């Protein structure tokens, strides 16, 4: 499992540029499914036949937050635009890797010594630049092109019980679905496995994939934040914790999850002695929000993997939460839901 997580998180595939991760995931799932399709926007929609005749859509998004090259100046310094939700304050001194392999680091504009700290505190992407060590515009252009995509530089690290990498959001969801397919023989549900594009810029891929499938039930897999129970003086409005099991979504900014489905999932977890927690998140959203309002509506929830430092190069998860989520899903797909 850790090898799989390492392989998936080390691939750079920001929103809209998912070709590499799409290839890797397709290779992994092909032996275990009946059909693999790629739609117009680039979503993978895989199908595995079940015995019960109802459709369950499992979604994980395969894109990650990243950057787009917007400008190169005469001295070879590069300006980038954020793709997805970035905090500019986290950028200075971060390493960035471009689509065609160039590596650079972020720094910020600051002309007056007395304002050096203030400039940092108020930094925006307009005031951030990337240094790839090029001396001239032409040298920079030989390595990086306008419009080229980039991501954080990957640095996977296995810490034993915990694992740290960029793009856990949401390669961990992708890894869980792949592992589920490896373990699960015949599901009750007809499974539609969606690896969605462009979640980070506005739930784009899940919208069209769900429209095409129009499932009876849907579960999105994504990451969620942790707070005061998990970190020294962590956020007080966030009770989730690493190691307490998958978090069943109750609400976030994109969705009020279906209460009946949540109850059924919690029951399933209890029957099989799988730990779980609930998630009430005051911000953020997942593909579940887009799937829920498809056509006449879809019974939808999200299972979240508690993750520290989301949208940074150091996203950290607990491997037990991952195993427990796979376990829980393997029971869910075998048992009809009755509201």
């Amino acid at each position, binding site marked *: 499992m850790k090898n799989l997580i390492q392989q998936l998180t080390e691939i750079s595939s920001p929103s*809209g540029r998912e070709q590499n991760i799409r290839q890797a995931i397709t290779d992994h799932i092909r032996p275990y499914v009946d059909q693999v399709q790629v739609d*117009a926007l680039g979503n993978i929609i895989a199908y595995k036949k079940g015995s019960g005749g109802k459709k369950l859509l499992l979604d994980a998004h395969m894109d990650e937050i990243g950057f787009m090259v*917007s400008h190169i100046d005469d001295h070879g310094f590069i300006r980038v635009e954020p*793709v997805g939700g970035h905090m500019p304050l986290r950028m200075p001194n971060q390493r960035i890797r471009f689509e065609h392999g160039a590596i650079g680091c972020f720094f910020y504009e600051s002309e007056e010594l007395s304002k050096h700290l203030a400039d940092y505190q108020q930094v925006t992407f307009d005031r951030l630049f990337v240094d790839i060590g090029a001396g001239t515009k032409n040298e920079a252009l030989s390595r990086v092109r*306008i419009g080229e995509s980039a991501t954080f530089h990957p640095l996977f690290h296995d810490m034993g019980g915990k694992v740290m990498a960029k793009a856990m959001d949401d390669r961990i969801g992708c890894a869980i679905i792949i592992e589920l397919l490896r373990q699960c023989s015949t599901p009750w549900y007809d499974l539609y496995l969606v690896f969605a594009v462009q979640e980070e810029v506005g739930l784009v891929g899940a919208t069209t994939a769900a*429209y095409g499938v129009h499932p009876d039930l849907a579960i999105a897999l994504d990451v969620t934040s942790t707070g005061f129970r998990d970190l020294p003086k962590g956020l007080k409005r966030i009770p989730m914790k690493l190691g307490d099991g998958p978090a069943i979504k109750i609400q976030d900014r994109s969705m009020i999850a279906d209460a009946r489905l949540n109850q059924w999932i919690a029951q399933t977890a209890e029957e099989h002695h799988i730990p779980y927690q609930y998630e009430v998140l005051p911000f953020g959203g997942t593909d579940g929000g887009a799937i829920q309002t498809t056509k006449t509506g879809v019974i939808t929830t999200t299972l979240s993997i508690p993750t520290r430092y989301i949208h940074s190069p150091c996203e950290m998860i607990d491997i037990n939460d991952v195993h427990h989520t796979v376990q829980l899903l393997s029971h869910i797909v075998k048992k009809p839901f009755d509201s």
Partner: protein
Amino acid sequence: MVIRTLSNLPGVSGHEEPVREYLWEESRAFIDNHWIDSMGNLILLKKGTSCSKKVMMLAHMDEVGLMVRHIEKKGTIRFSTLGGIEPSVLAAKPVIIHGKENIPGVIGMKPIHLQAPEEIKSPLKKDSLYIDTGHASDEELKRLTQPGDPITFDTPFAPLGQLWKGKAFDDRAGCAILLETLKMNIQPAYDTFFVFCVQEEVGLRGSRIAAQRIEPDLAFVFEGTTACDIPLVDPHRWTTQLGQGPAFTIAHHGLVFQASILQSLSTLAQENQIPFQWKQKIAGGNDSTPISKAGVGCITGSISLPVRYIHSPASLMSPKDYEATLRLSELILRKQSNFFTHDGRLS
């Protein structure tokens, strides 16, 4: 001149009728079928040699403007903005209220002499502005206009140096390009839907239902976009520059454009010596987002004419960009098969 006429026509979001009527009259001789839907989108079909694919070419008819909110006893009019307008560009500008008849007015404000020192220093607030039509009471005015009536800037189209000056280039420029392309009477390879849509400026709403109706395989959005190539601003914030040709969007709010469409567009332009530029910032969004997300999704390209001082009473654009965009638009229609591989998939 098509762009002159279109720029001068009034058509804020929800009140696009004058623009639609003009476009319909001008284009009706060149099309095979047409629809006007419940929100007022004008959808025109130009049949292709094959009906196996559907291509959509879209521009929005609406412009930003104001809306009558309340008519006060002493004859002044309070308004809301309709679309993203900074109050700072409104002070002391001429406008036209489109009620039962056209009522000219000016946006009034307190003279600088009477402003408190802190008022002088702080940006204008929308609530401190009002429209003065010269009417001394609400009696006459209430017969001519009512809350909800649209208001446009009164800025006649005219050349300005090497450029054009006018209101509503966002997106009458796109409408003009598509109308002129349509009138070339080219038969495309595939069924092509020219869509002049409503309500882009209030949430990208018209294009959404048009795309849900058509469910195209491939779509092109023709837009007026921000150009900020002025000396006050560092070049990396310019977004686009006037005179450098149409701008192709790589990513904007809510959507990253597919690498394949960017490749096809830039190759088409290069092979035909048409200048183009990349839109350099993600700022803003357009109809491409709801179109891409409609139904099971489609591939979309966004081609924009750079416009300085967009969403203000007086914007500027370059005739050179217009010419280049028109040539590109013609080529997109003539060479539709460039965008598909030989086995009919999108390349």
